Structure formats: structure tokens, C-alpha cells
């Protein structure tokens, strides 16, 4: 599946839910299902510090593809991380760099991208692109 097909699938699964609380319940369930990040990566060099929540992210490069592992200390952000990894992990650097990320806005979670939320999420997006760029140039 392409990045956009995965995004469309995510949008569809959220579109089926009307109630805000149920949408969030899905996100929370996703967050809880995210595999915990290996302790060796829970170090300052992998940390993206938000004002309210923290995200750790590490990346590896195998056979031309970038694989991400990440975690957050809040479950809602973990749910967003789960979705982001679904979209980006296992993609080539070019796919990541060219991607148009539209699913977050379409499922009504745009507020998490606002700087006001200070949850480290926007910084994480930037970090994903930085990793892709670094691997592409390496």
C-alpha cells in the first residue's frame, strides 16, 4: 500500500465514528497497542521535549528503507505516534520526503499540530523528515 492508501484507510476508520469520545477511545487504544520503545533509546539524544509531553524516536536504515521506533509518555500522543509510524515506517527516504501528510487534519486531530499544544508532535514530524534526509544523503 502507498502512503496515501494508508492515510485513506486511517481516515475511513475514524470517519465511521461520530462521537468525539469514541474517536479518542480509538486513538487511546492505538496508543496502548504501540510497542514500548527499547530502553536504550529512552535517552536525551532520542528525546523530543514538549512543554507538556515527551516523545522519543529512533530510526534505522535497512535495504533502502527507514524504520522508526517511537514512544511518548502520554497515551494520546502515543496514539498519534502509532499512526505516524504506520504511515512512515518502512518507506524509502524519498517517499517520506515527498509525502503529503493530510490524514491528521482529515480525522479532526489538527489541534495536536498546533504549537499551542506543545506536545512535541510537530517536532517529531520534522525529526522523521530529518532522519529520511540524513539516510538519503548517507
Amino acid at each position, binding site marked *: 500500500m502507498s502512503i496515501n492508501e494508508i492515510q485513506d484507510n486511517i481516515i475511513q476508520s475514524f470517519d465511521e465514528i461520530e462521537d468525539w*469520545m469514541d474517536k*479518542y477511545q480509538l486513538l*487511546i487504544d492505538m496508543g496502548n497497542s504501540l510497542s514500548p520503545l527499547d530502553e536504550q533509546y529512552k535517552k536525551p539524544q532520542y528525546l523530543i521535549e514538549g512543554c*507538556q509531553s515527551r516523545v522519543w524516536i529512533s530510526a534505522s536504515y535497512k535495504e533502502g528503507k527507514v524504520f522508526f521506533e517511537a514512544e511518548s509518555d*502520554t*497515551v494520546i500522543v502515543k496514539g498519534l505516534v502509532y499512526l505516524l509510524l504506520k504511515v512512515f515506517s518502512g518507506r524509502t527516504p524519498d517517499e517520506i520526503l515527498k509525502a503529503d501528510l493530510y490524514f491528521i487534519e482529515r480525522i479532526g486531530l489538527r489541534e495536536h499540530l498546533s504549537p499551542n499544544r506543545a506536545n512535541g508532535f510537530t517536532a517529531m514530524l520534522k525529526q522523521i523528515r530529518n532522519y529520511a534526509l540524513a539516510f538519503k544523503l548517507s
Partner: protein
Amino acid sequence: MESNFDVASIRKQFPILEQKVYGQPLVYLDNAATTQKPRCVVKRIEEAYFSHNANVHRAVHLLSQQATEAHEGARVVVQGFINAAESDEIVFTRGTTESINLVAFSFGEAFCREGDEILISSMEHHSNIVPWQLLCERKKMVLKVIPINDDGCLLLDEYAKLLGPKVKLLAITQISNVLGVENALGPIIELAHKQGIPVLVDGAQAVAHRPVDVQALDADFYTFSSHKIFGPTGVGVLYAKRFFLEKMPPYQGGGEMIDQVHFEKTTYNQIPFKFEAGTPDFIGTAALAEALRFIQKIGMDNIHAYERQLTDYALKELGKVEGFQLLGNIPDRHAIIPFQLKGIHAYDVGMMLDKLGIAVRTGHHCAQPLLERLGTGPCVRASFAFYNTTEEVYRLAAALRRIYKMFN
């Protein structure tokens, strides 16, 4: 709840509270961050702009005279509200933060030198920490901190030990913006004064919740923000005893604050104008006066009594919620309830409360050192104003029960 106080009619004065968010009636419990504005305050702003908007103090025309009367009238209203001895002791600023920065600069210039100490407490807002750190860096001084116990109360014995000839000023909050605890300012100020140490009181969290009398307190400086007391944003108050205002040099230079300007030498205006460089927010001050009159009409004692009942009710109701963990162990809280839901990050709790129509604050509340000391990390803060109701508290409790289930 019994009271001679009609919360339903009060709420009608605050149109913003009538709205729905995410399809739910708004429950606004972030009053410690900023308060909502009654109709009369917004009306006063409109009236000022539409009928007597002109620069104050200088012009000879009628509109300027009316604007000046409104602005200077506001100073008298503020004076009365905190019972200052004279209106010249009221300096208008942009907020509590600027008031404290003004004192840190101007008091520092007049009274402090290398090796001197400034004393603050462990429960200060960043606004009552960083200006003093800047002063200490500038003058090579030392910042000393009064510790608290695990309950979140000041250790008064330790405080007494920290006082000494090197201490030039004590800067302390009246009510903690995180814990809602009120410090025993009476004995604290008395002890400082015995050693000739002046005291600045950060009243940002106090003015909207309890009567304030700066003369009875014998505070040397008292600061608060208009927006936390139902007035407009961008206006603040610095009360200072005449003695200090006269001894302190100006904070900023410009129009309004001068007497005579010559390239060789400039002389400064009298107090309080010496500290009010540039065109003041004369519309904002007039609207602040309106807010204070609105509160005075309801009666600060009534507000205090109602909020005490509401806070006690909230502590009782929230205490029954599974996983609810209150921060600090304080006998008497002023309209602020800091808490965590066991095992759930404060950010997650705040996000879900928002979806249920309830606005709270989450995080470290601009008091990182305090939360570090208590060892709790980020927390949720529900903070009340006199327009909040027991029904809203009940909805908060119900929402927390629901959220606790969602995450467990």
C-alpha cells in the same frame, strides 16, 4: 448550596459561558490563568472608544479631559479596592509580570549591591523568580529560596533563618497558582520588617478571591493583573509605598514620565507618572475600574464565602472519584484544585476533559521548581471563579470517572 448570592444571575453577565464546545455546554475551570469578562467591562471598553477616546494628561480638549478623568478615576478605584493610603501609590503596568520586573529593576538600582540577597519562596510563579534571577545576575547578588514541606506549606522556621542583613527584599506570593495555598503573610511580613526588609507580595491569584488590604498587610509592594480579576488583558497594577516609589529610579524612559527634558539633563515627573512611560492603556484602566466596581457590588466577602463552599464541595466530590490524587495537603485552598488521575498523564486528562466541554490547565503551570520539589511532574489544575457552580463541579467529577475508565 446556601448563599445570599445568586450565581444564576451572575452567570448571565458572562455571555461566553453560554456557549457549547464540542457539543457540550462549556465548563470553564481555568480561571487561575485568566478570567472571563462581564458585559459591563466590555461595554465600558466600547463606550470609551466610541465616546471619549483621546490621549490622556496632555491635551486641552474635552475628549482628552474625559479620558484623563476616566484613567485617573480608575487609579482611585484601584486604590480603594486594595485600600492603599493614596492613589499616587498605584502604578499602572501591563500586568503582574511587568510590575515585578519594574520593582526588580528600579528597587535593585536604588537599594541593591554586589553580595546582597533576594529572598523568594519555593512556590513562586516563574514571573516571581526570573526577574529576581536577572537582578542577581546584573548585580552579582544571591537568590535564596524559602523551602516548603511535603504538604506544600512554607517552612516558617527555615524562613526565619534565611533573614539577615544581606537580604534586601522578600518577594512572595499570597496564594500559590498551583496549590491554592495562602501564605501566612501577616507573620511573614512582620518578621521581615523587624529586620528592616521590605516585602513584595504577588497578589495575582489572590485579588479575585479574597479581600485585600495592603495597609493591613503592611506590604511594601503588591502586584496583580487586571485579566485575572474580570478586567481586560494588558493592564496590571503595582502598588508601592510612597517611600519606595520616590527613592526608586524610573524603569523606562519616554513621554508621560518626564518633568523637563533637555539634552544636558532631564528631570522626572512625580510618582506615579515617573513609572508610566509612554501612553498608558487608558481604555484598559477604565475597564479595569468597571470590573472592580462590578466585584464590589457583589461584595468580595460574598465571593470569598461562595468560593470557599464551592471549593470544599469540589474537594469532597472529586475525592470520591477513583484514581483522583490531590496535590499537596493544605487545610484551606483558594479556588484552586491541582490533581492527577492515577496512572494517566495530565495532558491526556486535559485533552479528554476538553472533549467533554471542560476547560482546565495542564502541565507545570509556570511553576516548575514547585512541581520538582513536590516530585509529581505535570498535573491538572481546576480553578474556580464565582460564576462556577456545583453542577459544573459535578460534571467535572463525572468526566473524570469516564476518563479514568477509558484509560484503564
